[in-house]
């Protein structure tokens, strides 16, 4: 009997091969924390009475959620993280380097590995063919200290996407469409494994968007086989030697197979206050927007910024809209500078903020006013997410976001692309 990607990757980290439903102790290759979860991870780590992480070079501490720090309490938390890195040899990715999930795929995670991260969107690295899953601070403290964790091997859903996207449709629309279909708890405890011709021809940037949002359907992981796209992405990061072949087995057992025809997907928007409250963008042009955010671990990559600038080039941001842009990492920021994207965006009225999570987590740099509407390329629209429970958050692709910033209301860009 063949194995699912989840079974295959986990089995390579356990004493004997495992199958879905098994409880196992698995070796962990990489652990990660961010400034919202890192300080608690460190205090739990210290309770264990262990001096150093099992493999300090592969425990990465990211300062990305609240940087530059807007408050002294957070500055103090950052100090705790810097101190821990210094004391133990763990790796620090300080403010300005970027969002943990983008940094993890750029530099730290390899195909076939297991990553435990104290951030729910850790599943992003699944696009590299790694079993990457979000956990809490205590779990990650233990995984960092011992180099292993306990896992229940998840059942997998195979998500088969075939055909070509229509004009104006992107990976984000596909993922919102899927979550709308199966619900915000439609895949709780499961691994989503993506395949099909649409996925095969999709860029890594788009695959990261899909993997990133697996957790928004409740999933434990969002997994992809590796191919030449994976190889070329790693090569771009000057680490093609990290490539490993991770393939689907034809006879693996899937709990469910979901078939999607790419042509059925149109520009989609998730409406307040859950990600599965999805509607076609064209039905929402009565919704005026006060703020548009383009960025985050979901859609803050260079491909996203290129797409956004294509729509912004035509005219200035609507006078009633604030457009905030946060490149997902320093590398993305540098590339956007080289390509003149930052210049154009600034010229048309965007506020460019440093690489990091930006306003997505509601800590700084774009908190909504009472009753204000934000259209964002991030992954979550829960009540209060962007710092104010009276705010209304809609989610979309960078194309819908950029075009809406120009129009002043939620707008389907198909007509002008």
């Amino acid at each position, binding site marked *: 009997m063949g194995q699912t990607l989840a079974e295959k990757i986990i089995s390579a980290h356990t004493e004997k091969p495992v199958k879905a439903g098994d409880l196992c102790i698995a070796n962990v290759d990489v652990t990660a924390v961010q400034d919202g979860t890192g300080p608690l991870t460190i205090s739990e780590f210290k309770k264990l009475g262990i001096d150093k992480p099992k493999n300090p070079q592969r425990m990465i501490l990211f300062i990305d959620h609240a940087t530059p720090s807007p408050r002294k309490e957070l500055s103090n938390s950052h100090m705790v993280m810097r101190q821990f890195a210094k004391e133990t040899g763990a790796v620090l990715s300080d403010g300005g380097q970027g969002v943990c999930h983008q940094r993890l795929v750029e530099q730290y995670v390899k195909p076939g590995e297991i990553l435990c991260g104290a951030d*729910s969107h850790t599943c992003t690295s699944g696009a590299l063919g790694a079993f990457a899953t979000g956990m809490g*601070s205590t779990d990650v403290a233990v995984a960092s*200290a011992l180099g292993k964790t306990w896992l229940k091997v998840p059942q997998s859903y195979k998500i088969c996407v075939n055909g070509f996207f229509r004009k104006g449709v992107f990976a984000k629309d596909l993922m919102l469409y899927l979550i709308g279909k199966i619900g915000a708890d439609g895949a709780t405890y499961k691994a989503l494994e993506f395949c099909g011709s649409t996925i095969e021809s999709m860029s890594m940037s788009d695959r990261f968007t899909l993997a990133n949002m697996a957790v928004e359907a*409740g999933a434990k992981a969002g997994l992809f086989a590796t191919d030449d796209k994976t190889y070329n992405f790693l090569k771009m990061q000057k680490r093609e030697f990290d490539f490993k072949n991770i393939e689907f087995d034809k006879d693996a057992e899937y709990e469910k197979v979901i078939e999607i025809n790419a042509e059925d997907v149109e520009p989609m928007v998730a409406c307040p206050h859950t990600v599965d409250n999805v509607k076609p963008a064209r039905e929402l042009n009565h919704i005026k927007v006060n703020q548009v955010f383009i960025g985050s671990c979901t859609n803050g990559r260079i491909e996203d910024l290129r797409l956004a600038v294509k729509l912004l080039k035509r005219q200035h941001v609507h006078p009633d809209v604030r457009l905030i842009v946060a490149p997902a990492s320093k590398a993305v920021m540098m590339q956007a500078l080289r390509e003149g994207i930052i210049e154009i965006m600034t010229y048309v009225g965007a506020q460019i903020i440093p690489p990091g999570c930006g306003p997505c987590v509601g800590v700084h740099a774009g908190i909504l006013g009472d009753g204000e509407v934000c259209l964002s390329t991030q992954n979550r629209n829960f009540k209060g997410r962007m710092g104010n429970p009276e705010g209304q958050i809609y989610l979309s692709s960078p194309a819908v976001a950029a075009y809406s910033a120009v129009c002043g209301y939620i707008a389907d860009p198909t007509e002008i692309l």
Partner: protein
Amino acid sequence: MLKGKVWKFPDNISTDHIAPGRLFHLRSNLPEFAKHVLEDADPDFASKVQKGDFIVAGSNFGLGSSREHAPQIIKLSGVSAVIAKSFARIFYRNAINIGLLLLECNTDEIDAQDELEVDVRTGVIKNLTKKTEITFKPLPEVMIKLQQDGGLIEHIKKYGDFKLT
């Protein structure tokens, strides 16, 4: 035997409802953070909850972020258990790791202010107000083991390693 009053919540209570991002700076001060627990779902909850009370919710309780501060501040508020139709995965794991009791059952017939008596041993929830009984799903074995040891950190300290399989 646990006994207390019900605070009822709907489906999809997220970690942003429980531990709002705008109070990010209170993550380093959990007792203070606990004064705001679930504020965006029920502004009265934090100030009026009594030790031993139950949070009763619909499906997918705790969806969203991995922030362990969410179950931590529920526990600090004195709640003896969260009873829901289902829980989001990371929240479930976090709660068990830190020793917050979570029970899964159909919660449709439980209303706000009902008085409940929960017997973890027999798996029965008695609704003293409605004079009904509900059976909850048995906890997974790994969870029972971690709970018995007082959470994950204590488990590792006790055995120096995982002793779950």
